[in-house]
């Protein structure tokens, strides 16, 4: 099946030679990516004047050797420029949204994947279609509804939308995880006098945990980076999530010449998803296409 070989092959020169163009292309991509991120990191730790001086990475290493990195950029970005508030906002939104997404999606995915009933195909079809609906199609009616309910510019509306947007994908992703659980678990539980609802939460839900954890990682990355909905529904600086906060800060800092702080805020914004990815990259990469797309 897969071409993953766990035993380390001996180096065969002829084979490796044939693969050289492939290595070259991979190396080009990797070098560019590391330069982009590495330069930004370096620029976040030197003075604005040095950023314009040209050799940012060289200056960074010089300062590193002298223990003289400019952490003040981070202090400025985090404190004076209010990045901490936007960061906290996003932490709040994500902490509330992620569990609620699962509490709504997991039971639905379970019902859809293990029981036959009249509207099953219809609901599954709706799930697939919803994933393809561009966000531009849904913002206007929701905005007018929020206006009518006097709920524009509130955290509740924002979290509600984050949850709503994530549910079709989450249900879709969890379907195969419930479907592939051994059949007969429900009957066995019923014989022991366990009600269907209890059976789900006590037995089926814990068994689907691998899928639930993975989809939550994906949802986290999506919501942390979300920009479109947030830009429309979080106009007020008080409730801005981190992506919109960063956007506004970047524009302000460019004019004010706070270049170091600008790159420092950029680093702070991508750090959480970046670290998560470094730690879990293998799990994330094997699951992106795992349950979701059939080849």
């Amino acid at each position: 099946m897969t071409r993953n070989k766990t035993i380390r092959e001996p180096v065969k020169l002829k084979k490796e030679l044939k693969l050289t163009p492939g290595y070259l292309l991979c190396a080009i991509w990797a070098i560019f990516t590391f330069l982009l991120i590495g330069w930004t990191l370096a620029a976040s730790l030197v003075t604005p004047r040095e950023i314009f001086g040209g050799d940012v990475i060289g200056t960074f290493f010089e300062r590193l050797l002298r223990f003289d990195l400019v952490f003040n950029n981070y202090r400025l970005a985090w404190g004076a420029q209010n990045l901490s508030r936007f960061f906290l906002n996003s932490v709040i939104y994500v902490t509330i949204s992620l569990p609620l997404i699962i509490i709504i999606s997991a039971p639905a995915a379970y019902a859809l994947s293990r029981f036959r009933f009249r509207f099953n195909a219809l609901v599954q079809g709706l799930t697939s279609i919803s994933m393809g609906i561009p966000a531009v199609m849904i913002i206007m009616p929701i905005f007018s509804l929020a206006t009518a309910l006097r709920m524009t510019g509130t955290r509740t509306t924002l979290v509600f939308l984050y949850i709503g947007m994530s549910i079709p994908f989450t249900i879709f992703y969890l379907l195969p995880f419930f479907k592939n659980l051994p059949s007969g678990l429900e009957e066995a539980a019923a014989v022991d006098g366990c009600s269907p609802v209890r059976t789900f939460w006590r037995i089926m839900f814990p068994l689907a945990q691998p899928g639930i954890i993975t989809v939550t990682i994906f949802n986290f990355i999506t919501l942390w980076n979300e920009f479109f909905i947030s830009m429309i529904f979080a106009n007020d600086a008080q409730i801005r999530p981190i992506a919109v906060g960063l956007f506004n800060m970047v524009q302000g800092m460019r004019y004010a010449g706070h270049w170091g702080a600008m790159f420092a805020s950029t680093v702070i914004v991508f750090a959480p998803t970046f670290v998560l990815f470094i730690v879990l990259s293998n799990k994330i990469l094997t699951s992106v296409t795992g349950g979701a797309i059939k080849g």
Partner: protein
Amino acid sequence: MVGRKNKRMIVLFLIPAMFIYVMVFIYPVLRTFVMSFFAVEAIETPIAAWTFAGLNNYIGLFRIDLFNRSVTNYLTLWFVGGIAVLFLAMVYAVILTSGVRLKKFWRAVIYLPNIISAIALGTMWINYAFRDNDGLFDRIVEAVGGQTPVMWTGPYMGLWSLLIAYCFGMVGYIMLTFISGIEKIGDEYYECASIEGANIFHKFFFITLPLIRGVVRSNIVIWTVSLGTGVFAWSFMFSPTNLTLPYTMPPNYMREIIFGGRGSAVVQRDSGAAASVGILIALLVVVISVVSSLITRKDDVEM
């Protein structure tokens, strides 16, 4: 089969999700669709005050240069960027399944831009890669003897720079779906072909490509769907203060005519027309999904 207890449970389990579907998807889509045929100035206007306008919103949009330009920009990005992303993703997928060492590392590096916030990534591109004179791209151009500054974020190169930066973030995801498609093909096909003397190109065109046609199709749809929302942040990054011709995209134009927004008197508020913009973006998704499934359905291979 479904007992009464189970029936109660199914209903209970589906109600919250169905409520979300109705509130966040079904009702908004229908209302946006209807709204696109009515003259509605402000987004808050109640339905009672809408007046029927037939196709006027659509016709009116195409009389506005800025909107027409946004459509041209969008379709250019969709077509040129789509070909570039699918091509690069395919190349890297083939490389990573050809037995290279450090496969997991390369795969992670190529996917990496996908998990970084578009705003953070855009800041790095605009302020480092595309910066005039001492930015990375200008340095490279200078090194090979070209004329600098190229003005990557200027009016001539702007759209292409946006395209490069946006595509950079998309290749990894598309590549992963190609890899999973390629890995489903049995090794015996390739071994057999190798014995017969086929080279890597033969193998790609006569084995891989025909067998992953379905994946190509779903990747075209994924690309089209993600563009509608994904491009919004990039257009904003390249043109933060107001709508400018080289970077205008339909979703950004739409936001401008709903909320007025960034101090531009150029654009008049018109929510009816904004709904039409939404419908047009969705229409591209629908057309592409239908066409690509019609083209490739007949000769799909079951594996």
